[in-house]
């Protein structure tokens, strides 16, 4: 038999659950304004340590599109000058600043393509509640399988004849994405609650523009290294340089399976 308190607890849980179902969190923690006198944060992420030799992955499928170009692992990509690719740079907490990129504009909207049996880009940043455009340039069946914890799990098929699809995520999280049909395919979707994020290029470089002057924690995340933070100060119309120098000791022992 249920006691009164248990009944009450039950009721509250039910009510809370209902409330959650109808009120997804939005980007209301961030207010976009015009930033006229912002500063710029530029810098690079470097890794000075042993890197595995980069050789093409053996692709166990007969599908032709998967053999057009050699496919490489993107888990640890380092340039000759030690620049580390695919690191995510974000301001840890910021409540107001420049507007989000237009989610409908094909040039700026966050996009994840399935091309040559890889996910491109390997790391994509999406503001929460904004659509992520998923493309299938291959014309063969792929599935987008997310390994999320804070967000609901998704595993959606993208048959060859479907060229475009949209996905939305409710909460900030760094989510690994795989394809069960082509197990070497892997990408990371970074869900954020503000537009101050960058992914390092092939030289390890990054740039954040129109940052309101102030002192911030700048966060670096990379799947092979995990997070790192640095305090920085941004001044009006000035450039602030930041370097994240990583070494062997910073490597994660096992690969990262969930993006914390």
């Amino acid at each position: 038999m249920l006691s009164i308190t248990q009944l009450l607890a039950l009721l509250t849980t039910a009510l809370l659950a209902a409330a959650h179902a109808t009120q997804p969190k939005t980007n209301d923690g961030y207010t976009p304004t015009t930033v006229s006198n912002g500063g710029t944060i530029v810098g690079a992420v470097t890794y000075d340590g042993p890197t595995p030799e980069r050789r093409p992955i053996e692709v166990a499928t007969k599908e032709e599109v998967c053999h057009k170009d050699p496919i490489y692992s993107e888990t640890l990509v380092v340039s000759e000058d030690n620049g580390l690719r695919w690191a995510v740079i974000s301001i840890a907490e910021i409540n107001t600043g420049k507007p989000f990129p237009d989610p409908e504009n094909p040039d700026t909207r966050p996009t994840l393509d399935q091309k040559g049996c890889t996910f491109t880009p390997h790391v994509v940043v999406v503001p929460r509640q904004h659509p992520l455009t998923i493309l299938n340039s291959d014309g063969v069946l792929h599935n987008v399988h997310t390994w999320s914890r804070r967000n609901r799990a998704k595993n959606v098929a993208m048959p060859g004849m479907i060229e475009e699809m949209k996905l939305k995520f409710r909460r900030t999280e760094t989510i690994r994405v795989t394809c069960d049909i082509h197990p070497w395919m892997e990408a990371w979707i970074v869900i954020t609650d503000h537009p101050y994020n960058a992914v390092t290029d092939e030289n390890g470089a990054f740039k954040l523009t129109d940052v309101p002057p102030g002192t911030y924690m700048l966060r670096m995340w990379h799947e092979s290294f995990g997070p790192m933070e640095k305090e920085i100060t941004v001044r009006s119309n000035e450039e602030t340089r930041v370097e994240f120098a990583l070494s062997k000791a910073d490597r994660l022992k096992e690969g990262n399976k969930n993006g914390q």
Partner: protein
Amino acid sequence: MSRNHLRSPCCEDDRKASGRCAPRRVALLAVGCGVMIVALNACLNDSQSIALLDSSSITAPGSRGYALYQANCAACHGASGRGNGVAAIALKIRPRDFWNEPFRYVSTMDGIPTSDDLAQTIRSGRLLGEMPASPWLSDEDVRALAEYVLEFNRLGWVERLSGDESMSAADVEEIASDRVTPLEPIVVSMPSPDFRPSSEVGRSLYVQACASCHGPSGRGNGLNMPLDDRGRQVTVRDLTSDPIRGGASPTELFKRIRCGVPGTPMPAQPALTDDQVWQLVFYTRQLMGRPLGQTNP
């Protein structure tokens, strides 16, 4: 009575022997005997999960679901719902671990079962899954059990998310509730008036959307090493000879094809039209050797 208090006598040896604690003796006695099952429950869990079970009004001893669950389900699913009941060893297919595995037979696009989805499993059992039907349970009993097993799933999220330092206790509660709150179920409507089942159309859709996994002729031989969400090997269903566990009726097949089978590689198909899914339902039945008549979709 404290559960911790009962923990040590029955499980230390088993824990050493197998690394996991599932004492047969106690469990066999447990079927039909509430008190002994409480003892088993205590054996199977560390103090944290016992605390979690006790913290929930749904899973705490004394709730409606508790007695029903212990009497009808614990033998397979384990007294605390981790899929490790005594009878589990004898089953070809693992009973669901409600804490750590998603539910598979759902009618929603986000992989979370509705109360009706769970009720259907509980009332009619799952073919080949060796999960028996329980026609003697009243509707209220079935609802209580559905709520009970879903609560295990929520506690599983609380348990996993609690390890994450970046989350407050309130975040953990909120996200855990969210992850067991389903979207509206999909509507399985009749095919449009000009719909005609066609082997050709069905076959071409099958080739584009299914054959990579189920193989060109449906034998389930398309994938190399398919894994479930916990990294254990799964088998892609052989559509020509394996029983369809979630049910082979057109409506159930429609739901499986549209919503996918969560926790396994089988994806949802949000991009197909209803008529395309119906073509696939007909084509799947054809592969199964049980084609559907033209008049009765």
